[in-house]
């Protein structure tokens, strides 16, 4: 599974939305993710990829694509997967 697919699965599981509606352009509001869902998604993604995502960075994510790109970059930088 790609990074994007894994994160999509994590978010869909938390927000209980059909993962087919989650695109790179989807905002968190469109995915029906409230602030608690977002924190829980961050925690789950951190555990999955063995990285740490500071809130300062997470607050910059405008949509699902931003979240995925950030994690992809971190993973590409040689973080433990």
């Amino acid at each position, binding site marked *: 599974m790609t990074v994007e697919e894994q994160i999509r699965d994590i978010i869909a599981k938390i927000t209980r939305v059909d993962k087919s509606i989650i695109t790179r352009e989807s905002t968190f509001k469109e995915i029906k993710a409230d*602030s*608690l869902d977002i*924190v*829980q998604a961050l*925690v789950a993604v951190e555990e999955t990829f063995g990285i*740490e995502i*500071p*809130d*300062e960075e997470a607050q910059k994510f405008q949509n699902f694509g931003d979240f995925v790109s950030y994690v992809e970059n971190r993973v590409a930088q040689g973080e433990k997967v």
Partner: protein
Amino acid sequence: MSLEGKLALVTGSGRGIGRAIALKLASQGADIIVNFFRHRENAEQTAKDIEALGVKAEVIRANVGDPAKIDEMFDMIGNKFGHLDIFISNAASGVGRPAVDIDVKAWEWTMDINTRALLLCAQRVVKLMEGRGGKIVSISSLGSRFVLPNYTVVGVSKAALEALTRYLAIELAPLDICVNAVAASAVETEALKFYFKEGLVKDSRQVTPAGRMVLPEDVANVVAFLCSEEAFMIRGQTIIVDGGTSVGLFALAGK
């Protein structure tokens, strides 16, 4: 009041009340373990500021809502230090919703971090404090006994926290561990800015008889006292730090 040679763990001490407590205990000579979950930069800044006071600081990341992470944190403390003198259960989170909108997820998230963390941490802390005359202080809020809009699940978690504090105080007394809580009204912190945004607190200054908002340092001063030998006979209490707000009903009624 000297805490020289003591080792303190303050959960959620990257910012706000936890940071003020960490710095206060450090200023009295204690080495500090700074725990954080979401804000590493703040935690590292707190550690730097602690070291500038001439004591040691250690930064540990752990979500205290996750039992496995609590275990990892205490395994690390046990391996590295082998003991602990002071434990401040300060880390908190919450979901600002009225009772009818609180789902299981929001309930569990809040209770796990605000209440269960004290239980699970205390179980580990006890072993590290053996024979050392330890101090445990939990940080509560006025929402444990007074109703604030949308503060429901946090208030309930704090009420349970205070009850747990009483039980721990009695059960741990034979182990020479003092356990108390400090409950503050709205304190000027980052978290409060969040609540301002959410419309929870309009302007606490207007309803504080002492004439100003409670500062993190006001809470830290009381915590430091509870960690001193002077407070040895205070057990299982929740000390309110609110500038008189909770007893000054005239102020709440708009004078």
